[in-house]
């Protein structure tokens, strides 16, 4: 009898522990409503999935301010570093645990077809030209920052060498400037003319996406999609333009720091530029974010691989989108508030972002900002269409840049090889 009592007690304990395990889960489901995805209208909390870990604390401040000013709740979850936000999102989607706002790159929009809310007609759309518009889904992306990439330069070094960056709009001008800088290296105290790194395993995103993006967009108007359309039509490449681009890259290879070119790292590249070792760097405004990092003036010059190219690439590299089955009204309210003055204050002054909104009164602290602004105000900026290429293409093309940097290829064979690699990648 005693034994039986004991076993009944044990079973009871087991059962109650199981039920206890189940309990918080169900309470959670009922509470946040994010799990079910069905009925979420009554809940006002908005979940935002952020893909930039470096601005996590500023976004937490933003959430606090949002609660203070409007009484609505914003929950910021941050994914990043080596974890890819889009992978995490797929897991969240499969688990039925989607955030209301999340981050996507432009070419990922297609895979979320039909699952994103149309933000057309929202107030903030009147104050920016950088929203993400999709032909079938409408206005889907809220731009939270603008980034620019071109050849970043150290204005003090160029001045000392007597090179006027505004004249750098043709390959010949660059050839002359590079030659001049190279001959005065010791006098200027620089290690090499360029900090350009074609190492593929860690910096493939730089050569394969950003530098390659110059072939797609340099010199074109922001909404001109000629070369990206050609590329996405079975991987076609404009041979003449690519050849001119290849010759320019060849010049970059020639004048880059040989210690950096083939197997450098991002940190070395940026540290070298910050220390004043290089006159040019092949990154964007994200590489130097604070005025305290550098004791010289920074600016952008275009990748002028053809005569007359005078644009930099500028735009949002990624967007915040609202999940159609989530709390859309809450997300819309947040976007409108986020485009306003108090939110922009945090994003621009604390997080160091560049505001995409024309009515924003804050000047970004980014050392490249002044130069970016002159290009944007003059309308001399091209789009980030490189983000629309087929997923993973950069990991194929970056190796071609690396082989070129190692001297295994010349401009002509670089062009034919990259054409073959792109075509095969699209064909498969």
């Amino acid at each position, binding site marked *: 009898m005693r034994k039986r009592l004991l076993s009944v007690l044990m079973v009871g304990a087991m059962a109650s522990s199981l039920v206890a395990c189940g309990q918080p*889960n*169900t309470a959670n489901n009922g509470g946040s409503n994010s799990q079910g995805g069905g009925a979420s209208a009554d809940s006002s909390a908005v979940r935002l999935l952020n893909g930039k870990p470096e601005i996590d604390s500023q976004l937490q401040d933003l959430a606090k301010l949002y609660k203070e000013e409007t009484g609505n709740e914003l929950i910021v979850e941050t994914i990043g570093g080596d974890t890819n936000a889009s992978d995490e999102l797929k897991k969240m989607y499969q688990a039925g645990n989607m955030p209301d706002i999340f981050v996507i790159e432009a070419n990922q929009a297609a895979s979320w077809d039909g699952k994103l809310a149309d933000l057309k007609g929202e107030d903030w759309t009147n104050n920016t030209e950088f929203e993400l518009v999709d032909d079938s889904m409408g206005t889907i992306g809220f731009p939270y920052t603008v980034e620019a990439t071109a050849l970043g330069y150290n204005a003090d070094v160029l001045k000392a060498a007597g090179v006027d960056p505004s004249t750098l709009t043709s390959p010949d001008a660059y050839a002359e400037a590079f030659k001049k800088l190279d001959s005065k290296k010791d006098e200027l105290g620089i290690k090499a003319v360029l900090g350009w790194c074609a190492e593929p395993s860690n910096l493939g995103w730089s050569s394969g996406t950003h530098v390659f993006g110059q072939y797609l967009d340099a010199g074109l108007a922001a909404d001109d999609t000629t070369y990206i359309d050609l590329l996405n039509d079975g991987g076609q490449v404009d041979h003449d333009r690519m050849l001119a681009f290849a010759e320019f890259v060849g010049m970059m290879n020639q004048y880059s720091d040989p210690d950096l070119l083939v197997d450098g790292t991002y940190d070395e590249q940026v540290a070298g530029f910050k220390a004043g070792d290089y006159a040019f760097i092949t990154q964007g405004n994200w590489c130097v974010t604070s005025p305290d990092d550098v004791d010289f003036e920074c600016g952008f010059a275009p990748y002028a691989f053809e005569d007359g190219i005078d644009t930099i690439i500028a735009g949002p590299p990624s967007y915040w989108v609202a999940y159609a089955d989530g709390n859309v009204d809450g997300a819309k309210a947040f976007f409108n508030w986020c485009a306003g003055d108090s939110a922009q204050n945090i994003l621009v002054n604390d997080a160091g972002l560049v505001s995409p909104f024309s009515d924003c009164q804050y000047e970004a602290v980014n050392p490249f900002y002044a130069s970016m602004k002159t290009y944007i105000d003059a309308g001399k900026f091209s789009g980030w269409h490189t983000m629309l290429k087929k*997923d993973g293409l950069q990991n194929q093309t970056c190796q071609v840049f690396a082989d070129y940097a190692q001297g295994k290829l010349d401009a002509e064979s670089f062009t034919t090889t990259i054409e073959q690699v792109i075509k095969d990648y699209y064909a498969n």
Partner: protein
Amino acid sequence: MGDFSVRRKIFSFGCMVIGVAMMIAGLYMAITLTDFWGVRGTLIIAGCVAFFVGLYFFPTFKHHRGIINFMFLFPLLFAFAVTVIIPLVLGIGYSFTDWDGITLNKFVKFDNYTRMFHEPQFLWSVLITFLFVVLNIVLVNLVAFLLALLCTSKLKGLGFFRAAYFVPNLIGGIVLGYIWQFIFSKVVTEILNSQASMLTETKTALIGIVLVYVWQYAGYIMLIYITGLNTVPGDVLEASSIDGANSWQTLFQIKIPMIAPTITICTFLTLTSAFKQFDVNLSLTNGTGSVNFMGKFLSKGTQMLALNIYDTAFVNNEYAYGEAKAVFFFIILAIVSICQVRISNKKEVEL
């Protein structure tokens, strides 16, 4: 059946029926994403408990022991099914679709399977993976066995050597890859006074991966060999030395045959782990390195099979295609492992 009271029968069947009904109701809510009164989870758990209570009181003497066994095994079997069996079945299912991780548009039959054999990059990955496996089985076992011989001899400071050889295995593969990347690109280039590290060239990068892998894994295999060598009976060794066997003869005719089971385990371990090589590959080269193969310029000369699958699914966002490659990988691994174990077992019997 006649020995049981009607009340017990009713209680048992009642519990089971109610339990099943509650679980079905809970699962229905989970599938349709509805949750009345927030009881979805409670329903499933309570239903499960009720079912098992009913099962425990099931009116049978003959099968009672079996039922108890099942009840104790069930949690483990359930966990195994959820984490291994169901994903395997689902994965095979997904490999016949065009799933990209978010939406599934259509079934594509065997397209993913035929496609992989037309992809030069994938074929290259298969080729170098096999090469890598063969090289590693030989090198890891050789180095590990020599180290084990060293560590079972009468040297001073053996404890230190054993620990030192084993430590690389304690460092995670990702960290190890980054450490060696630094060594190859900063230290080795300094010593050899060369401009570029050996990781920038496909052939030398592959050698680099093999080196790092042997360095990491030999210590672990060494430990198993040490255990094996220590089980060789002392009287046999003593008898051989009395009979005048020299150290070579002792090694080849006594020690090695005596540790044949250990060799089986070690080759099996190195074989499967080399096949699944991923972390060092990812962090050391990330698969980069150009190579000309089948008349094509390939960008991922050092990309092995596991990394190729990972890249296909997570970088190129082709989940279903990656899944098909993973199924192919699973089949290769299963065949190779079974063959290997069969052959080794046969040898052991012959000895």
